[in-house]
């Protein structure tokens, strides 16, 4: 796999003295969808902003398509489209004017056909002559995507594209990202929703407190992180777990009234059904059951603990 973005030993300390990035090493592969997953304040926006040239790195090097983002910023930046986290748009310009402006800004000659295509793809075509101030929040977000795509970038950054976005728009956004990937565009998106990373990404990087905790193929990561637990409240306390159930690696609470089964979220429903059947066969009755899923926060806690 060819590397399109290479971040080495990147650190960022803001003027306030706060160190937002600590020695980041990260390679993004050509043509993949990469999800940068992390809680608020982890440094996702800082990392993206540094790659795009909005924040100056304190230390380290970034190559985009082999071009150093400082020395060879023109070549590097021409390849990138950025959709920022905040809905920052002008107000009184028309949709058409602002998207055309972005294309020019990135050094491309006017191409009304391409602008039209982008606006149609984002369902903004019938709004092309409207002033931005008249658009809804969802439309503004699509407009920011249209601006980012106006100059036909090879790399698209989406900073929390679905934060505060309704379900329909979220689906649309996911479709769009897949369609882009199909045309060879590399997409890097940040999110703090594990489901979104799960839904979209080829690979996932987890960032916490300015450090990359791990980078893995999605499938691998989900198996590691997406743990679920089934807890059963028993009718009668058990002294020990029957030997016949050993394969499930169950946990029995100290008072013997609670059985816990831990499994990963990747299609182990069958074994859960099997477990319930086996419990029945063993004559173990339960009053109640519930399942819990490890939250992203738990995952970070465990990652940080494992990392030490």
């Amino acid at each position, binding site marked *: 796999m060819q590397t399109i973005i290479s971040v080495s030993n990147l650190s960022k300390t803001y003027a306030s003295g706060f160190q937002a990035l600590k020695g980041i090493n990260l390679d993004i592969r050509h043509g993949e969808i990469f999800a940068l997953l992390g809680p608020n304040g982890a440094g996702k926006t800082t990392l993206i902003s540094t790659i795009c040239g*909005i924040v100056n790195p304190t230390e380290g090097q970034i190559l985009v398509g082999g071009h150093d983002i400082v020395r060879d910023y023109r070549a*590097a930046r021409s390849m990138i489209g950025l959709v*920022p986290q905040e809905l920052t748009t002008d107000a009184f310009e028309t949709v058409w004017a602002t998207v*055309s402006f*972005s294309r020019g*800004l990135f*050094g491309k000659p*006017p191409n009304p056909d391409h602008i039209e295509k982008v606006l149609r793809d984002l369902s903004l075509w019938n709004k092309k002559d409207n002033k931005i101030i008249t658009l809804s929040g969802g439309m503004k977000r699509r407009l920011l995507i249209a601006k980012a795509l106006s100059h036909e970038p090879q790399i698209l950054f989406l900073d929390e594209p679905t934060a505060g976005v309704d379900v329909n728009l979220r689906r649309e956004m996911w479709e769009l990202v897949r369609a882009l990937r199909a045309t060879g565009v590399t997409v890097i998106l940040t999110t703090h929703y594990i489901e979104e990373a799960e839904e979209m990404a080829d690979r996932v990087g987890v960032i916490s407190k300015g450090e990359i905790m791990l980078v893995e193929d999605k499938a691998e990561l989900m198996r590691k992180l997406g743990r679920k637990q089934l807890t059963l409240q028993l009718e009668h306390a058990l002294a020990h777990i029957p030997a016949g159930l050993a394969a499930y690696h169950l946990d029995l609470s100290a008072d013997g009234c609670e059985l816990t089964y831990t499994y990963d979220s990747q299609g182990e429903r069958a074994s859960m059904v099997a477990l319930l059947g086996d419990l029945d066969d063993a004559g173990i009755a339960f009053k109640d059951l519930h399942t819990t899923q490890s939250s992203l926060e738990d995952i970070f806690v465990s990652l940080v603990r494992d990392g030490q």
Partner: protein
Amino acid sequence: MNIHAIRAIYAFEMARTRRTLLQSIVSPVLSTSLYFVVFGAAIGSRIPEIGGISYGAFIVPGLVMLSLLTQSISNASFGIYFPKFSGTIYELLSAPVSYVEVVVSYVGAAATKSIILGLIILATAGLFVPLQIVHPFWMLLFLVLTAVTFSLLGFIIGIWADNFEKLQLVPLLIITPLTFLGGSFYSIDMLPPFWQTVTLFNPVVYLISGFRWSFYGIADVSVGLSLAMTTAFLAVSLAVVAWIFKTGYRLKN
């Protein structure tokens, strides 16, 4: 050179100018007209000619300069301050444009607008007093140099300012007094000797003097000095802008 970017920014800024043109023209045209009514007609008729020029005509170059300076500064400072304020500057910072291209397009657009306004005011003045321009080429040269220099200054203020108060305070507190005390309404030699010396430290004196010379062939200081000083301010402004961008001052974290 990213010509497409320069063109895009310039066109964007000029579109903003067109949207707000009426309000940008009305106020200076109105105040210029008032100056003429008050100073040109009412008071001016009792003031003797200065260097053979009627008082009404004498103040024209100063009034044009007054508008040119304030307009250049406010256009350019607002042009770059607003994207900072609204956050849309992210796009500029992430674009493959050099600092030179940014300055050329923003300052170029601001200067264009203030030159247009300066010419409109000149035309307005022509309605009140008979105008005569002895050195039209020099008149345009001073007009353009001044518009560019003060647009650069405005650009610097726009980058430096981190709130609207600062954006408005500098022109109000510094530029307005400098212009009023810069010989818009009088000839320097009408002042007591001490104040004549003080005045020579006011950069605006040189602009107005040179500009007035291009109209009537009379000047407070020699034209060569006016031109040299104007060019010097331009050079200083350019140096400050270069320093700002070199250090990323107030634009990037």
